[in-house]
């Protein structure tokens, strides 16, 4: 049974059992558990340092109310980062290529920020629908535009992540196939294709990290507006 290019994105099933839960939860095993020691091994030190720095940087522009979201953001970041990076390995399934998963992350979190804003400071939140300094004539148009932009946000969040990762994986598959097929026919061209594949892999590593970061950053931005 020959694989087509989109089989890598099918939700994995083994003997009728869906493996999606395993795909989502097993990356957690790779992260070392914080121990009760004061001085840890290098891995744990680096993990602790990274999470501390990341959370500190992310929560810098957010006021104290928003700091309740620190755990959410840091765990989301680690989750997305690990899923994306592990997906770059061969024969792996990347859950974040599924639109359902990304929308399932984006819509509730975005909605939470909006509801938090509307409940605690409704005037201030609604005020974001009109940027400062707009000419009076443009106000109605701009409010409509800003409302549309507000509702597009969860869609954009989810689709951005899905599209980036899916496109990246597809490209890797395509170029790898090209290199594979060209190898017996035109080895020199296959060599160049392999070089391209190497560069693309580097790009995909970067994209995996950046997309996870962007997802969390945008959510923190939406929170900052509303809190």
């Amino acid at each position: 049974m020959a694989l087509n290019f989109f089989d890598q994105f099918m939700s994995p099933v083994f003997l009728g059992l869906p493996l999606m839960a395993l795909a989502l939860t097993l990356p957690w095993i790779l992260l070392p558990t914080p121990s009760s020691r004061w001085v840890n091994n290098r891995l744990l030190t680096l993990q602790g340092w990274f999470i501390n720095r990341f959370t500190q940087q992310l929560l810098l522009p957010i006021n104290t109310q928003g700091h309740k979201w620190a755990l959410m953001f840091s765990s989301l970041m680690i989750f997305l980062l690990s899923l994306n990076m592990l997906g770059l390995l061969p024969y792996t399934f990347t859950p974040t290529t599924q639109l359902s998963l990304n929308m399932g992350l984006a819509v509730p979190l975005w909605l939470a920020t909006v509801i938090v804003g509307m409940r605690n400071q409704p005037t201030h939140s609604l005020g974001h629908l009109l940027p400062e300094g707009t000419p009076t004539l443009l106000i109605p148009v701009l409010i409509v535009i800003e409302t549309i932009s507000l509702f597009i946000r969860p869609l954009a969040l989810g689709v951005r992540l899905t599209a980036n990762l899916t496109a990246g994986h597809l490209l890797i598959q395509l170029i790898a196939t090209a290199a594979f097929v060209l190898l017996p026919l035109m080895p020199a061209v296959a060599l160049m294709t392999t070089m391209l594949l190497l560069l693309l892999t580097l790009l995909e590593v970067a994209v995996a990290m950046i997309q996870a970061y962007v997802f969390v950053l945008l959510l923190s931005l939406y929170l900052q507006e509303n809190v």
Partner: protein
Amino acid sequence: MCKCKLFVVSRDVVGSSRSLRHRRCSLQKGTKRPKQGARCSERLAPSFINHAVQARSHFSVVQASRSLHSSSQSLAPVPSLPEKGGKVRHGIIPEELFQLLYPKTGVTGPYMLGTGLLIYMLSKEIYVINHETFAAASIGAVIIYGIRKFGPSVAAFADKLNEDKVAKAQEVKDLAMSSLTQATEDEKKEQWRVEGRSMLFDAKRNNVAMLLETNYRERLHTVTNEVKRRLDYQIALQNLQHRMAQEHMVNWVEKNVVSSITPQQEKESIAKCLTDLKALAKATHAKATA
């Protein structure tokens, strides 16, 4: 009670996650040692993973005793972490495999095993070379390049983080110690000062006595001067009176003498003076010509 946690040994760039493994290994002193060839991960996985691993394991491993909590091992005092992680060759293959195969197959054993396995899987088409192989090769190259290039610096950074942490605590301890030694020295100095206190008092007493003496002498001097001044005044007064009397007397005598000189007496005295002068002139003239 030994609490075993579930974790997969990840042989990664910084290479020290195995240290955690070894920590757990060292706790198992009271339990039966598994056979020397057992991979460490199998010794540590908890029981439900054990069964899955055992079914496919090439080595027989005794695992049951640990999960029955029958050992008297405790977690305190916390055993120390090993300095370095487990030894690995080529980044991912533990040294224990090579040690295991060395007696039977020598140095090249594991390599032959690896090559044979690879060729077996390729020839029997258990693993088929397809486009994913290329993708695997490229991601493998990226990972290996990343680890070789950035591994040492990342490890050094992690070490530095830990060292800074320890250094900060050490600094606090050193500061406390230095301040305490300083306090001890200051206290000793104060004690030495106390010994010299009597000397200080003597010196002060001498000072005060000298001041008093000086003061007394000054006042004595002043008194003497004052008395002398008064006496000088009296002397001057007497001298003045004496002189005035003398002058008065001299003036009175002169006045009387001058008034008592008659004109007859005056003429006689002038004639006498003239004859005396002539005689003197003659005498000098005679002396000059002689």
